[in-house]
């Protein structure tokens, strides 16, 4: 049973029974601090031991460059690259990353043994398997792996318009018209099939208002015609809402007529 497993130094101590917590003794506090420090150290240095095993490859790579041995250089580069990749994978700490890192270290060991050290293929495979097993032994269960974060939801068709409208609404002189446009967006999100026909309207209005907001925030004095223009934009937005509603009403009217006709034809009415 997993409860019987001895507690590892970096794991927090189990909670004491309810009502029996009592104050922590100085010794317990010191021990908890040491354990937390060790846990942080181990998490922070996770995987960094692996590249240290490949230190001869750095000198080997320099030597191979000097002698012009491409095969040896490729082996050294693969050995270093795969090990560094395994370290990065281990440090990412997602589910299955320890297994992936172990496979990479196994591949690095095999390639370096077979290609760089020119051992026979059986020995290369054995050393590769040993590298895999060694990494599993060293890192399995050392930290809790987490599942990769869920991707963010795809943006909705009106999200960009809403973001622009939020910027416009931040300017107090445009509060009235931005309220009217927010009503249009609310209506459209309730009836997504109308978004296509309203897209041009939204782009023109939000573009214009965004530019006006930029100028106003840059310190421009509002011209005389601005209140009239904002009034026109507000009434256009109200008209758009009325039109959407009227189209919905017309669609419902047609549905009612069709259903009534069908009921009549079937003899139910």
């Amino acid at each position, binding site marked *: *049973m997993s409860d019987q497993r*001895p507690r*590892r130094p970096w794991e927090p101590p189990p909670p004491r029974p309810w009502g029996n917590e009592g104050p922590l003794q100085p010794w317990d506090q010191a021990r908890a601090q040491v354990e937390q420090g060790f846990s942080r150290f181990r998490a922070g240095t996770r995987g960094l*031991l*692996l590249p240290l*095993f*490949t*230190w*001869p*490859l750095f*000198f*080997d790579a320099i*030597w*191979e460059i000097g*002698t012009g*041995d491409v095969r*040896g250089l490729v*082996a*050294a580069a693969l*050995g270093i690259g795969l*090990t560094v990749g395994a370290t990065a994978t281990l440090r990412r700490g997602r589910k299955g990353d320890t297994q992936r890192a172990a496979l990479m*270290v196994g591949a*690095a*060991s*095999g390639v*370096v*043994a077979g290609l*760089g*050290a*020119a*051992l026979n293929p059986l020995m290369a495979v054995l*050393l*590769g398997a*040993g*590298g895999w*097993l*060694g*990494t*599993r*032994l*060293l*890192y*399995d*269960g050392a930290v809790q792996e987490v599942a990769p974060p869920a991707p963010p939801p795809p943006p909705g068709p009106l999200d960009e318009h809403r973001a622009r409208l939020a910027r416009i609404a931040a300017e107090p002189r445009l509060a009235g018209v931005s309220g009217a446009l927010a009503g249009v967006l609310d209506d459209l999100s309730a009836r997504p099939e109308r978004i296509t026909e309203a897209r041009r309207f939204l782009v023109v209005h939000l573009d214009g208002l965004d530019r006006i907001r930029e100028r106003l925030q840059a310190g421009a004095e509002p011209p005389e015609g601005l209140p009239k223009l904002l009034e026109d934009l507000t009434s256009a937005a109200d008209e758009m809402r009325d039109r959407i509603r009227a189209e919905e009403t017309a669609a419902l009217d047609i549905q009612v007529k069709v259903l009534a006709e069908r009921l009549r034809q079937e003899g139910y009415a």
Partner: protein
Amino acid sequence: MDRPASPPPVPSRPLLASLPWPARRAAGIGLLTLTLWLASFLALVAG
């Protein structure tokens, strides 16, 4: 109420997982020294 005749099977732990963690870590370091380090060293010597 019916009781199951036998408790549900507990998945057996791998042999290596039953080793205490310091032994596993030490074995891991030893094995990596024997494989990854040894292969690198032999590559250096062969080069």
